[in-house]
């Protein structure tokens, strides 16, 4: 059983009359990439701030790495890395000096600092430009450097707020690979907020969806897909005759079915599997080229729409 590194119970934060986070209860296990999904203004950043002990909860409690965020925030920050809403880089300083400053803060020895800074900058393809002022860099390069800063001291838990925002597809894929590797091989826990749902689907072992500060769903991406009410599936193919349509509609897991061009669009019961559908289509004379199941994005949009 993996250790729980983040546990919140009824975590709530009010700003005057606005409730930014409302009774949040989540558990994050060690060594996982945890995706925290929600539309803009849903309370993701406020949650991270509370978990880092930067903001006090109005009600409820949170424990990070076994420490209470109210009473031992310093212990938490000592063990965590963070890339927050903004890269937070000193634009007048060079890339190397930015990392040097935080490496000193994390008390790496001079030799460790040199080696770690070189390792990270080389890995991210920034080593040749380490002497340049960060203010002259592109947004993507700054974001890479900010990620390097969060990883500098090899923390047990990393908070990443939209880490791939501004990165080109190649750099974003490389970062995703690195985060996955960190979680798998080094046991680092990653708490990730993102708007990129395909990224969350690829990377996260567990996701939570919040809206207006309330937790709407939590679980593994495949669990959420299968539990979602009104799950959608699309079957691309040919010969979707009325016979095929009737055969599909007769199946108990099908709520509705309609043909749109060369696609058969289906609404399924929660937990439905598509193999019997494919069998029924082929038996009725249809041809199947591709099956598209509901993505995390569909689940997310459904959840958010249901709450409106």
């Amino acid at each position, binding site marked *: 059983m993996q250790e729980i590194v983040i546990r919140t119970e009824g975590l709530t934060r009010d700003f005057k009359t606005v409730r930014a986070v409302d009774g949040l209860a989540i558990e994050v296990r060690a060594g996982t990439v945890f995706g925290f999904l929600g539309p803009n203004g849903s309370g993701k950043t406020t949650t991270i701030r509370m978990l880092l002990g930067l903001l006090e909860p109005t009600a409820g409690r949170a424990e990070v790495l076994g420490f209470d965020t109210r009473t031992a925030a310093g212990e938490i920050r000592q063990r965590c890395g963070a890339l927050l809403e903004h890269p937070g880089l000193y634009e007048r*300083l060079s890339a190397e000096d930015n990392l040097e400053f935080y490496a000193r*803060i994390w008390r790496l020895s001079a030799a460790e600092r040199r080696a770690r800074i070189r390792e990270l900058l080389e890995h991210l393809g920034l080593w040749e430009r380490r002497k340049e002022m960060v203010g002259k860099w592109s947004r993507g390069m700054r974001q890479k450097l900010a990620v390097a800063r969060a990883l500098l001291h090899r923390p047990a838990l990393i908070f990443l707020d939209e880490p791939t925002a501004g990165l080109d597809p190649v750099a974003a894929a490389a970062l995703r690979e690195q985060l996955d590797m960190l979680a798998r091989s080094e046991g680092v826990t990653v708490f990730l907020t993102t708007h990129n749902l395909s990224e969350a689907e690829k990377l996260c072992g567990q996701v939570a969806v919040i809206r207006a500060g309330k937790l709407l769903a939590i679980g593994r991406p495949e669990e959420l897909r299968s539990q979602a009410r009104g799950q959608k599936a699309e079957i691309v193919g040919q010969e979707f005759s009325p016979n095929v349509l009737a055969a599909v509609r007769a199946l108990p897991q099908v709520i509705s079915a309609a043909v749109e061009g060369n696609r058969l669009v289906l609404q399924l019961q929660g937990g439905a599997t598509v193999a019997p559908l494919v069998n029924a289509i082929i038996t009725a004379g249809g041809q199947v080229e591709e099956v598209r199941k509901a993505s995390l994005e569909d689940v997310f949009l459904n959840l958010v729409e249901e709450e409106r």
Partner: protein
Amino acid sequence: MIDLGDVRTIVWKELKELLLQRGTTRRGVLASIIVPLVMLGIFIPLQEGARWVQSPMTPLVWIVVPVFLVATMICDSFAGERDRRTLETLLASRLSDQSILFGKIAAYVMYGWGLTLLGLTLGLITVNVTAWHGELLLFPLRSIAFTLAMSLLGAGFAGTGGVLISLRAATARQAQQTMSWVFMGLMFAGGIIGSKLPATWKVAAAQYLAGGTLVKLALTALLIVAAIDVVLALAAMARFQRSKLILD
């Protein structure tokens, strides 16, 4: 808790940023160090000649100048970080509140007081080279001790007061405006308070000033400024709350 290693780390970063504020270290050193030193450490002593070591202008210059330099620059300490969106990341690090706060104050006080030390040394060299009469010209011991102590406390006053303003300001520009108002207010307040004091208090103060030795007066002044520094530092500590700094 104050950790001296952490304070040193903040000082390292602040001084680097201070020297790089004009784009390159060379330009930064020129504007922040060379220009004031040439003006006050070479040019004025050159004009004054041998009188420079005895002149009451020397302590005045090297007490007032660091106060103004520190006051101008320290406005950037927290408000500038907030402007440039680096503050939250710094606050999310393992550094304690006191280490961040006193690291920033120490950096600017070191800058201001360091200029005083360099400027006085440079002035001494200048007058000895240009007005040499066969014997070494030196500052009177009591005068130089007072100048150094008051310059340090004055830089501390500007540092602690400036940090307090910077903590409360939304932007560096707002902090600078507030600082200007505070200085103007202090100048006018001195005159207004003086005129409003009861006559008996004025007489007592005059008797104290007339009866006291210069040493006693200097020590009184040093104690008053030191007490103000402590009060301002305590106020800055009370104001430094991570949640407030993030939400402001």
